[in-house]
């Protein structure tokens, strides 16, 4: 159930569609099966591609012999690294990390001399039928020679450890210094030092990675692919040595992303095969391939050393973070920055030192995942808040209360929080929503409660100089067309734009059509990552729609002989606010504008705040446009004899600034919390000595319909967000506080803490033993 609260709505304009839980425009296609996802497209004369993947985590490749595979009838092409000299996948964001790109940053498309993780791609087969391609993989002979390997960041940081990527294994580091933590720790009444660990997890979108590529008659490589980033056409062009305007990404509706479709997936494999064969080539990852060979969430080891007063006030924090980057760099430097910058959470701490390292190992590579480092940081800082309270014999909520940041307080980087910072409000409401604690159902059951507050940025890093563009136009029949490059990954990205334009132009939502996700045909809108599309493309759409409205209002004001400000639009009509009889159909006004050559469309670019890079000495400076704040409370039952944990109740409260579509917002919050539940209790990509022990959904467990608790979702609207109508992003924030809230609830129930996610029954039972 959604509780809906509007404590600060007075400064918002009258709204007719924004704020309503309208059915999404993409919903009917999805529920009737009409929506076509990437794997649903076929083309005449299409080939099927499969990729041969390394069977060793670290090895020299002595020989790759594809002759037998090439000779198999029905095989059209077998490609190895020899067929694409020099081609690399850029895994750093081109042009934004500035100075010099670290050596060894890029990943090969196909491994040539060495494989660095089990599952790395070695060869591509394109064949007439999928079964033939699969058979051809068996015919490729590879000789490996084992190469020294390292599987934990701690070992990889030791001198003399095998080097995974040149020049050394520390692929990224951040050192943040604010105030003087050493000195302030000396003044503390109590010092609490603890270490927390998180695991590899998999995005586990229901739609495996998929795409189809073809070369058109102009030599343009077109790739229809399930992606969060159509702008990859540039790095694809670079890798395949094509001009940027000869690579065309046509996105599709994406069957779940969560960061896992932020990096390139099938694009280069099918792109290469299409270029070589000049035939359409389709590739769909198997589930096993998706789990084995695509990126994972970074495991972190986070150590907090915190100095506090007896009353619970935090004086200083020293935080060390070590992240496992896996075999390649990908987005590790930025994931690490998110974690480092939010290391002490939404609390006012004047003296902070953060040291953060991302370290290469021979594990599957890690990269973006909803929450992007900030979620891992929250697992640590929110458990640590409870442990501080325990050390001081105080109520954890009280310790949070005395330390919550206020507007104007600063992050470890010195960035000041702006707008409403409703941490206490959210925590109180989430906690209250749990209601009375029920008695345990059996003597061996203990009930526990936990809370976690959080901060999570929305919008990209501000020194990336982020922009988005949208085109909004009115058709002659009064329908709206939006053109915007936004990929819709299921969060309602497209519907949000539709709802904004429908509101501004007074047209029913169902009369809006959005053409999206095409790198060549829709204005580029940037990535569907970093909780940025509502903020960025929402604002671009708002600006474009407002520009159209302005033209129309001016023309209407001439007709009605009034001021343009007196004109309003609703229900496909235009009218004078103060005199309802002064009214005409929108189509009539559109026709007048068309007859006079007045523009009925606008292309608008929205710019996020731009900042300079951080101070290299102490990482001081602004990093993000703004933050979302909120809290998650849970109630759990723990079986003291078995360690089994059941989450009984979940209550989330987030200040989303403005809920443009409350049903969609609640859907994000509920879905994010459920991912957080999986993170806390069952999800674990177990990679042991480089071998993934959890290659399918039988071993890698997602929460089922039976695992989700009674759920309350409380949406607060401060109206102070930077998005249209004062909205804040909620995509990533929804997940962030759930796992630590559950960890705190379990600790509350059993009187001991499991410092390592996930909280398996066995680990919980061990903690119960230790507390006895």
């Amino acid at each position, binding site marked *: 159930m959604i509780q809906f609260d509007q404590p600060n709505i007075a400064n918002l304009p009258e709204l007719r569609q924004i704020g309503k839980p309208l059915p999404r425009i993409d919903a009917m296609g999805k529920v009737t099966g009409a929506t076509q996802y990437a794997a649903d497209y076929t083309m005449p004369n299409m080939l099927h591609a499969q990729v041969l993947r390394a069977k060793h985590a670290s090895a020299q490749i002595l020989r790759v012999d594809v002759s037998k595979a090439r000779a198999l009838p029905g095989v059209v092409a077998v490609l190895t690294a020899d067929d694409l000299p020099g081609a690399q996948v850029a895994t750093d964001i081109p042009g934004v990390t500035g100075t010099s790109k670290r050596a060894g940053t890029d990943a090969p498309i196909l491994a040539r001399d060495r494989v660095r993780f089990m599952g790395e791609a070695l060869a591509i087969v394109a064949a007439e039928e999928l*079964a033939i391609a699969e058979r051809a993989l068996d015919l490729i002979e590879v000789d490996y020679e084992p190469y020294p390997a390292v599987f934990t960041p701690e070992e990889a940081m030791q001198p003399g450890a095998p080097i995974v990527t040149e020049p050394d294994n520390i692929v990224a580091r951040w050192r943040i210094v604010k105030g003087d933590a050493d000195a302030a720790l000396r003044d503390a009444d109590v010092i609490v030092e603890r270490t927390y660990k998180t695991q590899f997890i998999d995005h586990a979108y229901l739609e495996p990675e998929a795409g189809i590529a073809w070369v058109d008659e102009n030599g343009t490589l077109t790739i229809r692919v399930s992606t969060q980033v159509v702008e990859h056409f540039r790095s694809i062009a670079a890798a395949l040595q094509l001009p940027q305007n000869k690579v065309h990404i046509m996105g599709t509706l994406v069957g779940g992303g969560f960061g896992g479709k932020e990096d390139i997936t099938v694009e280069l494999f099918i792109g290469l095969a299409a270029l070589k064969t000049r035939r359409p080539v389709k590739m769909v990852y198997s589930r096993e391939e998706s789990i084995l060979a695509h990126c994972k969430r970074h495991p972190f080891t986070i150590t907090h050393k915190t100095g506090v007063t007896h009353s619970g006030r935090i004086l200083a924090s020293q935080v060390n973070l070590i992240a496992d980057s896996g075999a390649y760099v990908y987005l590790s430097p930025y994931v690490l920055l998110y974690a480092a910058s939010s290391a002490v959470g939404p609390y006012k701490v004047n003296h902070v030192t953060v040291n953060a390292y991302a370290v290469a190992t021979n594990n599957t590579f890690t990269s973006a995942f909803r929450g992007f480092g900030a979620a891992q940081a929250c697992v640590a800082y929110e458990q640590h808040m409870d442990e501080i309270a325990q050390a001081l014999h105080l109520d954890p909520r009280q310790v949070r209360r005395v330390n919550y940041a206020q507007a104007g307080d600063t992050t470890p980087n010195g960035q000041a929080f702006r707008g409403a910072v409703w941490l206490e409000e959210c925590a109180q409401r989430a906690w209250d929503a749990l209601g009375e604690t029920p008695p345990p159902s059996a003597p061996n059951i203990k009930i526990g409660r936990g809370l976690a507050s959080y901060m999570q940025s929305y919008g990209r890093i501000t020194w990336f100089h982020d922009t988005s563009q949208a085109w909004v136009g009115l058709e002659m029949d009064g329908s709206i067309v939006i053109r915007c490059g936004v990929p819709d990954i299921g969060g309602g990205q497209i519907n949000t734009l539709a709802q904004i334009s429908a509101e501004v132009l007074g047209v029913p939502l169902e009369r809006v059509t959005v053409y999206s996700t095409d790198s060549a045909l829709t204005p580029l809108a940037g990535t569907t990552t970093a909780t940025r599309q509502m903020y960025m493309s929402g604002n671009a759409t708002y600006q474009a729609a407002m520009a159209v409205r302005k033209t129309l209002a001016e023309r209407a004001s001439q007709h009605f002989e009034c001021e343009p400000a007196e004109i309003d639009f609703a229900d496909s009509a235009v009218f004078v606010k103060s005199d309802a009889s002064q009214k005409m159909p929108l189509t009539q006004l559109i026709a007048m504008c068309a007859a006079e050559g007045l523009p009925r469309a606008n292309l608008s670019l929205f710019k996020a705040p731009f900042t300079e890079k951080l101070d290299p000495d102490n990482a001081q400076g602004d990093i993000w446009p703004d933050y979302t704040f909120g809290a998650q409370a849970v109630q759990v039952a723990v079986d003291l004899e*078995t360690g089994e944990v059941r989450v009984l109740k979940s209550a989330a409260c987030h200040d989303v600034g403005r809920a443009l579509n409350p049903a969609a917002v609640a859907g994000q919050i509920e879905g994010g919390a459920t991912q957080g539940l999986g993170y806390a*209790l*069952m999800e674990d990509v177990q990679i042991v000595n480089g071998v993934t*022990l959890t290659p399918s959904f039988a071993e890698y467990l997602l929460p*089922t319909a039976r695992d989700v608790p009674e759920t309350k979702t409380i949406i607060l609207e401060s109206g102070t967000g930077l998005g249209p109508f004062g909205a804040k992003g909620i995509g990533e924030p929804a997940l962030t506080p759930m796992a630590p809230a559950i960890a705190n609830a379990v600790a509350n129930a059993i009187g001991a803490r499991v410092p390592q996610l996930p909280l398996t*029954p*066995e680990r919980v039972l061990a903690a119960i033993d230790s507390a006895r």
Partner: protein
Amino acid sequence: MREFDLLQPKTLNDALEALAQNNATIRPLGGGTDMLVDLRARRVQPDTLVALQGVNELRGVTRANGHLHVGASTTIAEILKNPLFAPFNALRQAASVFANPMIRNSATIAGNIGSASPAGDMLPPLLALNAQIELVSRNETRVMPLSEFFLGPRKTAKRADELISSIQLLVTSNQSPVSNPQSSAFYKLGLRQADAISLVSVAVWLERDGEKIRDVRIALGAVAPRPMRATRAEEILRGQIFSETNLKESARIASTECSPISDLRASADYRRRMIAVYVRRMIEQAWQHF
């Protein structure tokens, strides 16, 4: 997926004929929920599959001569729905947590038995209920206690030319004046609330005589190379007064009788401990059912 030929016999004779004619690479196909997964993973490499779906002799659940005859092709979903299974609480409980509803609609009882996974959900309750298994081939029919059927992980006493034709369960009625009341219970400990692979599973069956446990069978899953009976733990309880002390001792013995391994889901030590907990709980639960 691997290439194979698919035979679709309409009669049991035709199916058995096919199995008798072919070499060792022929395999029967029941609901397919294990077989297709194994085929994809290349765990099995048959040249020929014999689909049993169309063989009517393998269908149906009938009650006769004090026994329930459960056709090999009986689906797990049917065990949940058919009232004839009502006396077999442990079997019903196992069916209710077996994989998920879609799998239950396809998966068959014989398929679960034939797969002989140490963690097969239906196996401990069938052992606790002292099920008999009937195997048929072109030349003979043999019936054996299910406890003798499992030889090791995925290894059974079934020959390649044989099919599981039915399972037989002894039916007794709690209303009957001639027999003692009986009760059974099952629990599966998994890592989530549905569609989980068992860390351990426990099934117990009790026959009550006043305040005494007249007879008892305890079966364990996922803690040995094959589903097993905890016979020494049974001995502690058999013919004894139902007491907390006996219960705990029996549970303790059960945990020493099993030989679990450590794997990605849990350690051997944890599994042993959970056997002790759940043997005790299931006996309590079955007792409370009286």
